[in-house]
């Protein structure tokens, strides 16, 4: 990833009606999550497919603000209904594609797909270093993911909010999927550039 890839990802994703927040570290990512949840008047949030340290940080900040947080394996709720009652779903993405403004979410448990598919707002979290430039660059990434998970595995490309053109080909957002789509790009540059 370089700055131009992040720039073109942002431009593209926003042109699709989504919002992109660049976060310099985990704390500011958690703050961004909190702001979005507040904006969406969220009282219940589901999280899935996030790296543990991210899930922990987000969970802490949200809980401190009185937001109920549901986490894998969702033993306390009935699936899928419990997820549908959340206002916001947060999932991790394995990589992003700048050219098309796409997040690639990996699910070896379908609860992940519920979290990004049922609530009215979705937040995807991707590392800046994992944004590839061109669409075709996704091929080796996909291949590696399916090789790593040799059993059931679903990769979902998500490019902005749910939309339809089924009535008179007029673009309308938010039919069945989220009407609001956010991406938090986590700048992990410090890991790449040793001081």
């Amino acid at each position, binding site marked *: 990833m370089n700055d131009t890839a992040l720039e073109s990802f942002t431009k593209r994703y926003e042109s699709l009606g989504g919002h992109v927040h660049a976060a310099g570290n985990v704390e500011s990512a958690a703050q961004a999550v909190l702001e979005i949840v507040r904006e969406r008047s969220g009282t219940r949030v589901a999280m899935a497919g996030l790296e543990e340290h991210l899930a922990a940080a987000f969970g802490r900040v949200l809980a401190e603000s009185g937001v109920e947080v549901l986490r894998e394996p969702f033993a306390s709720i009935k699936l899928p209904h419990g997820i549908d009652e959340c206002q916001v779903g947060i999932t991790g993405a394995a990589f992003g594609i700048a050219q098309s403004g796409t997040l690639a979410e990996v699910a070896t448990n379908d609860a992940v797909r519920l979290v990004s598919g049922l609530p009215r707002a979705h937040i995807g979290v991707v590392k800046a270093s994992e944004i590839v430039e061109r*669409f075709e660059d996704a091929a080796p990434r996909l291949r590696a993911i399916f090789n790593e998970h040799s059993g*059931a595995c679903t*990769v*979902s490309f*998500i490019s902005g909010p749910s939309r339809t053109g089924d009535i*008179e080909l007029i673009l309308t957002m938010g039919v069945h999927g989220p009407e609001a789509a956010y991406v938090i790009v986590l700048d992990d540059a410090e890991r790449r550039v040793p001081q």
Partner: protein
Amino acid sequence: MTERYERLCAAVSKALETPERGTALQRCMQRGRDSRGRAIAVLPGGEAFRAEVKAIKDRCIERQDELVAKFTACAQARGAHVYFAENGAAAIDYVLQLARKRGAATIAKSKSLTTEEIEINDPLIEAGLRVIETDLGELIIQLVHERPYHLVFPAVHKLTAEVAAIFAKALDKEVSPDIPSIMKVVRAYLRPIFLDADIGMTGANIGVAENGSIVIETNEGNGRLVSTIGNCHVCVMGIEKIVDTIDEALTLVLAHPVSSSGQLPTTYVTWMAGRADMGDAGVPRETHIVLLDNGRKAMRQDPGLREALNCIRCGACMNICTTYGVVGGHTFGHIYPGPIGIPWTAAVHGLDKAAAFAPLCISCGLCKEICPAEIDLPMLIAEVKHRVAKRDGYHRADRTMMSAERFAQTGSTLAPFANRALQNRTARRIMAKTLGIDADRVLPAFSRKTFKQLFTGHTSSVENPLRKVALFIDVYANFNRPDIGMAAVECLEAAGCEVLLPEQHASGYPYIGYGDLDRAREAAAFNVARLAPLARTGCDIVAIEPTAAYCLRHAYPALLGHSRKSLEVAERSFEIFRYLLDHEPEFEHVGGKTDRSGRRYGFHVSCHQRPMGSGREAVEWLRHRGARVEVIETGTCCGMGGTFGLKAGPLGQGLSKAAGLGLCKKFKESGVEAIVSESSVCAIQLREGTGLPVLHPVELLLPAQG
């Protein structure tokens, strides 16, 4: 045959009675084409992806048996159940048994044309299941018990107010006639269905053999929910959807939405391999992939229809087809609508069903130019028409149109008399009755002297020719307007070319249009045999009628199995202005003779010009020389469709004029003083539709002539 023709005529007449519907559809089609155009303008490589898509589909269909086996093995290895269904009945039976075994009550469906193809809903509903379409467009047409109007936008014919009324009635509540209100209602209605469905049924846009995954592309997100929630998932997929690699699939994932709606890619693309658990409930979850043959294997063995298997169901061809735009997908379609609907219906639903709407294709060829898989749709459609005609015969009017050359020959021989007859009401009424030629069309007068006769008496003044040109003249310039032919000769000679007129027949394109491929091949073989030796000695072949140039360059090779000779001819064949432009540096001194009166001309790009370059070569040439010419277009056909628009009745001039309305209006509103078009038949349509004079561009080149 006659009865079927009459039925189609009646359907067309009915469509012509409600032009508002057609206009709304055409607006949507235009919206689709515009977004496609914008997407391609920024796509790296532009239109180049089409060749790539074609190559992928060609090689995967070639390796079909191997890829089906590989896909099956890989999908099974990931835990999917794979069932090969020879036909629709077998697929339906499999799903029914599965539903019974699982004690299922509700099936939530995501859009799947393949399940439409086998009409799976009815038998499931009869078996007591609740089957709900969740794609908005599909849901709308399910509620009104209709069939898809368009491959990608199944309810494109329903206007917002109608949609609101449909939901109001179905859900028995008030729905305001605006899209956001409709969305709210739909979301609330479908939510419990998503959450509680026992079985989720989807199609798949692609099957990837490499990892046994299916790829589902949706924008609304219903495909994701349907494939995630129910503990049982069923995917019904045609075997032609299987590709080998992820890379190939990625190309298609872009090609599909770029072509239909200008997106890259759809909002959601689900790559689903096997069936994952949901949470830790420990409930067994299944996925069943039903691989459907239903005539596809036979199609693959059928050289006349095989190419249709390359279709990636993007729907672009129905965003450009003019006659589809007038009559809509219920008349222009069986279950598969639009251009591709003709060969697909013939292959999977039988020739009769295809015959019911195949005559609506007027062979403009535009669908081929927009198709991301570069499918030669007009040729596949001609094959279907050919098969129908071999069995049931040709309609009278179609026979007349296929004899245009003989007709013109007679007309020219009897010129003064024949021309009087063309002006005479009684004679025209008799012609309409006996020959099927519309009585009101203003037909061009015949010339007593043919171009061939004039040319034979002409002596060339070119001494050391720069190039040698064989002129391909076709019917109109030969029998009706030899002066245009002579203007072309003078122009080429002024450029320093030696002009020859080899023995030739008419291009024979009407044989393709009306489905007599035997005679089309004869005409192609005749002309190629005479032109190939010339091409081989370095002689160029130039046509002044776009359709003739299209035949030489595209249709003849396709008809003659891409024989070496046909390719030699194709390579050296040009539409006259393309030719002049290509050699502009050499031909510089033909300039200066263009109309510089300042008169504003509007240029009409004929359909067959488009595949041979920009289609605007004449405009460029004329403008360089000071003429005021602007292109005026809608992006589709003028509706004439060669001689289609000359035929009497709704399935001729009626449909043709309706299809041309939009373009004629644009010309009239543009304020141009005259129209320039290279096509002799488009000229008839535009002259009548606008009241403006229509000239061939060579007439502007040498205004002193003619």
